């Protein structure tokens, strides 16, 4: 098998495994996994920009929330059905990424991080300011009967699991395609050495903007799906905490690997879940594990696997 065939086999295998798990998992883990898969899409969007292009954003909650509110506000206040509302969420994310991206192209390094942080903060405050529609911190519930696409009731655990899996599968396939094509290779080259890449004949700004658009839209898709599948939109999802989460997930799983975001999100979710069963000081346990991982697997779980044995992992 060539490396490309191997990586398709592995990733499609993971998707098939998750499909099969649906039938054997107990209800609790079944629900958790659906949540993890949606959040993985968020982490994968983040990974396009951070892991592959080398741009560290501290404000991705802006895109997640753009998707979530694009969907939920059009259901709540425009009486749209779930399908068009989902597209509205994607479009909102794309538009926000376009505007923010154009401005971000003028920055580099620390300035890039600060500007992303500021935009996300502005987004958070905007959600609070328009509390009359968004209900601010308290948020609002999307009624169960409105959460239907093509006859599927997405509040039903089985449909929800499949919707989440479908969405993650799409994100995995998009990311795989990106890293296998010339476009993705150029993103990696920009991460490794921007000036050299420019002097090989590539338009850096255009590639960075494309990466921001893809990353922002994928994050928005995750936000919209989260709102739709779990039936709630609130300002917490626009807060700085939700900008830090994808960074953590991606770092833990392995920045610049296709499966890293999934492994990282899954690991973090169950780390907190299991440690909070043991003690109320669960953040202490989680913190210690994170420190240990940073020390012993600085490239993340999948990154470490790639370094040690599977050199071909994309």
């Amino acid at each position: 098998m060539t490396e490309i065939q191997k990586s398709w086999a592995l990733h499609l295998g993971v998707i098939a495994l998750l499909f099969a798990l649906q039938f054997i998992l107990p209800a609790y883990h079944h629900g958790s996994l659906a949540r993890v898969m949606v959040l993985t899409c968020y982490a994968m969007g983040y990974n396009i920009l951070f892991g592959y292009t080398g741009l560290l954003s501290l404000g991705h909650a802006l895109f997640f929330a753009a998707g979530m509110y694009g969907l939920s506000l059009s259901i709540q206040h425009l009486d749209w059905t779930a399908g068009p509302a989902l597209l509205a969420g994607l479009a909102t994310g794309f538009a926000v990424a376009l505007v923010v991206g154009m401005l971000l192209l003028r920055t580099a390094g620390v300035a890039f991080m600060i500007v992303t942080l500021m935009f996300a903060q502005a987004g958070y405050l905007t959600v609070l300011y328009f509390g009359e529609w968004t209900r601010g911190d308290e948020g609002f519930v999307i009624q169960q009967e409105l959460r239907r696409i093509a006859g599927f009731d997405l509040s039903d655990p089985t449909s929800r699991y499949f919707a989440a899996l479908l969405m993650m599968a799409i994100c995995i396939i998009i990311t795989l395609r990106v890293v296998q094509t010339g476009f993705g290779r150029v993103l990696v080259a920009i991460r490794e050495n921007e000036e050299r890449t420019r002097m090989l004949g590539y338009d850096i700004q255009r590639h960075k903007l494309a990466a921001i658009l893809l990353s922002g839209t994928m994050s928005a898709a995750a936000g919209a799906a989260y709102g739709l599948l779990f039936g709630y939109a609130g300002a917490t999802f626009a807060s700085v905490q939700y900008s830090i989460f994808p960074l953590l997930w991606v770092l833990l799983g392995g920045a610049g690997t296709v499966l890293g975001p999934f492994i990282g999100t899954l690991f973090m979710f169950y780390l907190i879940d299991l440690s909070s069963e043991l003690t109320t000081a669960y953040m202490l346990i989680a913190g210690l594990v994170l420190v240990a991982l940073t020390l012993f697997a600085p490239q993340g779980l999948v990154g470490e696997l790639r370094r040690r044995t599977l050199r071909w992992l994309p």
Partner: protein
Amino acid sequence: MSLLSTRQLSRHFGGLKAVENVDFDLPTGQVRALIGPNGAGKTTFVGMLSGRIPASNGQVMFEGRNITAEPAHRRIRAGMAYTFQITSVFGRLPVTENVALAMRWRTGGDEAETKRRVAESLDRVGIADRADQLAGDLSYGHQRLLEIAMGLSQDPRLLILDEPTQGLADSEIADFIALIRSLAGEMTILLIEHNINVVMQTADAITVLNSGQVLAEGTPDEIRANAAVQAAYLGTG
């Protein structure tokens, strides 16, 4: 006809005139060396040719076209390959991917063709046996050769080599001279070089920069005999 020429090309940094009114003509097919003492403005001048540094004044023409306002990446795609003074390969990527990145835009996504040209370029500079290593694991001399392979893979009309022999051992320099000689005739080469031996053995013509201006221009023998050049280098007269 000149492949590359400049008219009144200038760059000022505040009050410092790093390059001042340089008229320069590089005929097609020539190997031209650009020399000058430290601080003569060589790097700034070449930066303006390749688009890394915007010109304060004047024009750069490439194949008869005014490219003064064009961004660097477009100049590269127009046929101008550039190798860095300080080795600047992608250390964490394989040697083959380094070269593939240099020219994938030319093959339009045809990976088989890309692969073929990558092998050809690596073979040309003599590091085909290192193809599967990470570029960062290569010796310094091989990294410099990889840089040149990246330039060659673009099949450029003009190859700009910025201090290519800096930090090389004597034996590697001899190989490098042979490589440049084998390339002469296939493409126009602009060589920015400190090592006078290399210059004398490879260049058809030499331009000497001093204090941001052209001090002298001519064949290696003429330059060797030029009193003003000797004065600039040795500080006499």
